[in-house]
């Protein structure tokens, strides 16, 4: 008989092996499903990798898609470190997009070197406020942040829709819900002759800063200590309330940045389809990466590549869009359950 035992120490050097096994397993199941549909299995997987990661273009597309995922996920991870369950990245993303658009529409006469920082600032404030509200509700009204952040998502998205259906609607859009196209000063430029945009550098900067802050500063230490044991934190006079407010505001602001980058760099205008569910995928990414900034970068990239690669499969092999979703689900499921084996193992009785 096999029995489940907790490992005395978490799996160390062989942890990547578990990850690779999980991915291979899920790909094998995907290949089998492809086969059952009467599709060439190996060719399907080859097309998948080719279109997600296999060319300069694919890498550009994947990196661009990874940018909003990374920002949202980094924000979510900071809150999760303190065991504050911020499910509200989606709404904070919406508010960030609204904040940035507000600046883009009302200060469109400014040159880019004033306008873009202003958009970033207003996205930070708007997203930050959307993080601050559940923090205050938690601290002063004892409202569970899982509920409040989730509910604020709907409110955030409705605010966005109210504006694009209402006063911000482009007169030339024939009634379609979208703002006018931004002036060029409000659009984040492409890097050189590539399709990449400077939002990527923003990610690099904030990712690096966050990794350093978490590893080397007092704030990082307090976060970790209070998160892993709130009681011990309180004994050590770590200001828990301040931390809750801080992490939720940072969390909201980062998701807000993602909203800013997505509206400015990729859409060049605000429209409801800016909401592509990054805020929810971000939670998965944060967990896959075990809240580590470098890991978040890696997993945002992999997940984005997966989303892009699946489109290639559709185009080349006419596999239904739903199959891509099945494949995503399979990979996430196996990798997440694979993490279980970091702390547990099967042993013979």
């Amino acid at each position, binding site marked *: 008989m096999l029995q489940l035992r907790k490992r005395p120490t978490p799996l160390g050097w062989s942890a990547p092996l578990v990850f690779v096994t999980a991915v291979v397993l899920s790909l094998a199941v995907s290949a089998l499903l492809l086969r059952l549909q009467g599709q060439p299995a190996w060719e399907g997987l080859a097309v998948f990798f080719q*279109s997600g990661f296999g060319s300069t*273009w694919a890498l550009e*597309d994947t990196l*661009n*898609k990874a940018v909003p995922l990374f920002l949202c996920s980094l924000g979510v991870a900071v809150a999760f470190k303190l065991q504050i369950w911020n499910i509200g990245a989606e709404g904070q993303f919406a508010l960030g997009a609204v904040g940035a658009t507000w600046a883009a529409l009302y200060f469109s006469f400014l040159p880019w070197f004033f306008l873009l920082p202003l958009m970033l600032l207003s996205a930070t404030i708007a997203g930050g406020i959307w993080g601050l509200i559940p923090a205050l509700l938690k601290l002063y009204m004892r409202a569970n942040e899982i509920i409040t952040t989730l509910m604020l998502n709907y409110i955030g998205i409705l605010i966005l*829709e109210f504006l694009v*259906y209402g006063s911000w609607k482009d007169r030339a859009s*024939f*009634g*379609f*819900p979208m703002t006018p*196209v931004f002036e060029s000063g409000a659009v984040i430029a492409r890097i050189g002759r590539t*399709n990449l945009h400077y939002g990527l550098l923003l990610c690099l900067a904030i990712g690096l800063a966050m990794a350093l802050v978490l590893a080397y500063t007092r704030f990082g230490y307090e976060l970790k200590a209070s998160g892993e044991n709130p009681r011990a934190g309180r004994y050590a006079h770590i200001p828990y309330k301040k931390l809750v407010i801080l992490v939720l505001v940072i969390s909201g602001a980062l998701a807000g940045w993602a909203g800013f980058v*997505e509206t400015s760099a*990729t*859409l*060049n*205008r605000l*429209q409801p*389809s*800016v909401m*592509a569910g990054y805020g929810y995928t971000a939670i998965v990414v944060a967990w896959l990466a075990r809240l580590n900034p470098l890991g978040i970068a890696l997993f945002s990239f992999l997940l984005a590549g997966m989303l*892009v690669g699946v*489109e*290639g499969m*559709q*185009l*080349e092999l*006419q596999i*239904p*869009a*739903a199959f891509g979703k099945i494949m995503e689900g399979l990979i996430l499921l196996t990798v997440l359950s694979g993490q279980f084996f970091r702390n547990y193992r099967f042993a013979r009785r």
Partner: protein
Amino acid sequence: MRTKSLCLLFGALILLLAAGPVSAKDLKVGFIYVTPIGDAGYSYMHDQGRQAVEAMVGVDTSYVEAVQEGPDAERVLRNMARKGFDLIFATSYGYMDSVIKVAKQFPEIIFMHFSGFKRAENVGTYFGRIYQARYLTGIAAGKMTTSNVLGYVAAYPIPEVIRGINAFTLGARSVNPEVQVRVVWTKSWYDPATEKEAAKSLIDVGADVIAQHADSPAPQEAAQESGVYSIGYNSDMSSFAPDSHLTAAIWKYQNLYRDIVKQVKNDTWKSTDIWAGLDENVVGIAPFGPMVDTETAELVTAKKEAIAAGDLQVFSGPIRDQDGELRVEKGEAMSDEELLGMTWFVENVVGTTQ
């Protein structure tokens, strides 16, 4: 020895190459759909058109379904262009900016954008006068209603949809001046659950014919369950609501797509704006359900012929708006520009264009 085998190898290669296809390179045609193709509705009908094109000699097609109108659309279009598609059909209004952007990067590729108004050297637009078919279905609905309340589940308050609602209402009014058309917006092209709820709410306020402008047959199913009549859209939806389905305003993209592909193949394609209707058999109505009496069926068929022949204009005066203000004088008809920018409801419609 070595040289000999190399020579043999080359010889074989040359033979292989020469034996390859002699015909000109196949035309690669790509389609991008906003919703899953499914088995009825908007993208389904576009895909029927794609299959008609696929059946042509020397044409190869592919598609990507369920592509959101936003950053994803631009990426999918760009990938199609890179992968060597010669002609790309973007089948939703919201792809407009993405099409224009990508078309600029790939001037040698031809793009056709459905229902938009932005064109370029290599971007044409195409659309159909589905409002003519809606007028006809309106006549059937106006004849068959007993409560004089017709329900209309509609996606977005944009001119295309508003025009359809108005045409439907004018058709119903032409046979039943008492009729009232109530509109509920779903604010989504494809959301079967919301569409069904919207239809139910219309039935609750007394509507006994449900028409729709969305992508799924959910409103028809709601009508079937509640025992009221319905009018389908996009495709013949009678299989989803056999007891309820009077007829449907349907698209016949096959002819349109085949013509465009032929033009591109023959190098006669030019960027234009195509807006074809009953006259060119791009739109039509589905066969009548068994509950539709012959008098109604004959009336609708007669009107259909009149429109196709150009004897009857759907939007000809006098037309009043919801506030009773005269918008189109007697003896006048609305121009295409006015139709494309229509943002107001005709009288007898209950609802707002917000």
